[in-house]
């Protein structure tokens, strides 16, 4: 659905994107993760032709992003945390305003269903709604025409847990029933791990990984080693695939990023002959993300 190759963008001397290659496959929910300032919003805005890219190829629905026209926009739903809604309108007026733009794509029944489920006040201007209510209104106006591509840029930012949960539940239902392509960005993995099929992690303007969740979770393991005496790291350099290695008393703990049944255990034994494997367990998506975030921080703090 979206193809990005070697995307570059510079803001006043700062390289925000340094050659991003990313694919958003059709029919899947892709979580776009990364710490604040990684370049997620910049990438999305380039894809939505909201800002000009400096270099690279970027296609959305088979069309260059700079040439997105009415036909494409009728099939794209875009919601962003800072997007400026016409705040002098009420929710019904907002829907009345956008509805004619989508013509036959707009589903009145679906609109009513969403309106009921979001439970928004109908006589209050958008300017007087809470942040969560505004996001719901934005979501409503962007989903009622059943878009093929849903792009959500930090949609849960600033929402309280209850509203966030409502959002996620509703979004999960819709993605399962409608089969939409969803591209959702967040700096918090917890928000998206429930329904993400695929993960892409951006760090410092470059894509660190993009992978299906199943595959990702399949290769990450939390490894705990136990020693009879005081645990110590071996003199030889450890595998680069072992992240966040920690020594605590008699234990050594690290995250294996490319676990292979059998051969990985042999590698642990070879590297730590005095130790024994106490536990090798899968990680949640959140734990994987935290691990990676820590490893990025560790790399950036190392002297060059």
């Amino acid at each position, binding site marked *: 659905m979206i193809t990005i190759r070697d995307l570059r963008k510079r*803001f*006043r001397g700062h390289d925000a994107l340094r050659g991003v290659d990313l694919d958003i496959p059709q029919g899947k929910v892709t979580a776009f993760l990364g710490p604040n300032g990684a370049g997620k919003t910049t990438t999305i*805005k380039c894809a*939505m*032709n*909201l*800002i*000009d890219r400096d270099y690279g190829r970027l296609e959305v629905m088979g069309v260059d992003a*700079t040439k997105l*026209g*009415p*036909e494409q*926009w*009728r099939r*794209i739903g*875009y919601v*962003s945390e*800072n*997007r*400026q*809604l*016409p705040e002098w309108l009420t929710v019904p007026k907002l829907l009345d305003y*956008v509805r004619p*733009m*989508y013509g036959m794509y707009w589903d009145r029944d679906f609109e009513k269903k969403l309106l009921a489920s979001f439970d928004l006040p109908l006589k209050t201007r958008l300017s007087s709604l809470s942040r969560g209510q505004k996001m719901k209104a934005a979501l409503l106006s962007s989903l009622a025409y059943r878009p093929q591509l849903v792009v959500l840029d930090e949609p849960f930012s600033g929402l309280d847990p209850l509203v966030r949960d409502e959002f996620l539940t509703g979004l999960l239902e819709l993605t399962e029933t409608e089969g939409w392509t969803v591209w959702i960005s967040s700096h918090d993995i917890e928000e998206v791990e429930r329904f993400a099929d695929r993960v892409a992690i951006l760090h410092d303007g470059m894509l660190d990984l993009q992978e299906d969740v199943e595959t990702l979770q399949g290769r990450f393991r939390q490894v705990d080693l136990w020693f009879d005496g005081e645990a110590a790291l071996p003199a030889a350099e450890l595998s680069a695939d072992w992240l966040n290695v920690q020594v605590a008393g008699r234990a050594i703990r690290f995250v294996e990023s490319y676990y292979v049944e059998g051969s990985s255990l042999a590698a642990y034994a070879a590297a730590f002959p005095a130790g024994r494997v106490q536990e090798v367990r899968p990680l949640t998506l959140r734990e994987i993300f935290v691990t990676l975030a820590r490893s990025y921080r560790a790399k950036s703090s190392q002297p060059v």
Partner: protein
Amino acid sequence: MAWIIVLGHAFVLFTPYDGIFEDLGNTWVLLFVLWIVLAVSVVRDTPSRDDLAFHRTLPPGAGAAFWRTVRVPLAILAGIGGVLLGYTWWFHFTAASFGRGLALLTLPAVGFLSACGVAASLASDRSVGKVRGWLAVFAPVAVSGLVLWLTMRSLPVTAEKYSPLRLTAVGILAAALCYPLIWWRVAMGKRLLWMVLLASVVGIGLPWLYGNHWPAKVKIPPYLRDRDFKEESILARRPNASGEIPGHLDSDVMEAKELKPGELASFLISANQPFEIEKMIFDSEHLIGVRRAGSTGTTGRFDLLHLQAGRFRDGSTGMGSDAELAAVGGLLPADVDLQNWDPASEHEHVELVPPLEHSQASDGGSLAVRKPWSEIDRQDWFALGSVTTLPEPLIFDLAKGGSAPSGRRGLIRMQALEKEGESFVLKVERFSDEGWSMDGPLDVVEQNSPGSAPYLVIVDEGERKAYLLNGTGEPSYSRVFLGSRQRIRFETGPLAKALPGSQERARRLGRLPGCKLYVFWPHEIRWFRRKMPAPVR
């Protein structure tokens, strides 16, 4: 804001306040402030370059958003056009005047508003920012203008004439054509860098587009701007007259020739002076000519006597008030007896009043010395004037007043007769768009050209009498948009002095409210110039 701009134009155009253009002065700058605010406001509602704008990801796209942005300004321009249409229709101005007015009112607005639109659109781009957005458009104009001004100031020839804020017709047209196009392309997000460069090039070039100031101010009436008058033998000394023109001028000495029936020649007799004098000033102190008896020639008003010569429909000719009475009388109902309102005016004594010796004229820079009386050669004398015809009169009820189109263009309006003490006051004004040109309005001086004054005749239909109003004086001029307003005021008061008996006076005044006013506003055919024999001192 839109209503303020449109209604403001309507107020200025239609207000009867005479000094409005002078009192407005430089307040037109406020209009440009309004345009800036308007541009910022309309762009803010639909910012074309803002990545957070709601409309950016809606199907209609940038084109529809740009239309939303410009529809209010377009409506304002249409409103101004509508106001102007009403104005030109009301005053019976021509379509050409409407076109000029539309260009004058809208082209600068289009150029300036569009430039502000480009700046505001660029400023809406967060990566550009407000300051850089506005500087990108207006800094080139300002810097280029400053460079030009500093350059021109260093040249003595142009230092006095060049102003840093110079508007030229070419520049305004260039801005009105280029900036809207740039605004549109910037709003559509096409070739942004090229458009910014183009805006900079246009901005740099604007101050250098040479041309006349627009609108221009022409202080010299047309009949003096143009020196190439046709030398005509309209006036000549009668074959049996001897010597030069005596102290008084009458038909014993001169006759009208080469006039067609119904034509009236109005002229003044003056002496040639150094060209610099004539170019610089138009003040009776420095003119030598035939004046009305009792005139000192030292006042600030141009009071050289306007004389008349006419050929009547029966082929005969006449001079002075005889010519006027015959010309006017020929257009009144046949059984109406025409006479002068003031009997004393029928025998006006004209004499030559010598001017000041060695007077000087200055336009603030150059100085020229007029020829003294003793050095003026006989060959320097000439008659200068216009040939006119009188159209069918416009007829008004004195008690009610009214307005009517003046021929093919313009409007004549008469206010209802007013009583001021023992006297009645008649006020007639004419709005005309003649004399305007694409150079702009005439800065009309309060001086009349020979032959431009109207003839006012009070007709008492009951008694079948008509009175030609003498002593109305020359019309006073004031500016209106696209034209001028000439005003005539006549008071019946002096009648008390002229008529020996109060009975006749009281009778005439008593019947006035029931009378009609016939207004003859001469139609100018051509100007002429004729060498004259020098008057005897």
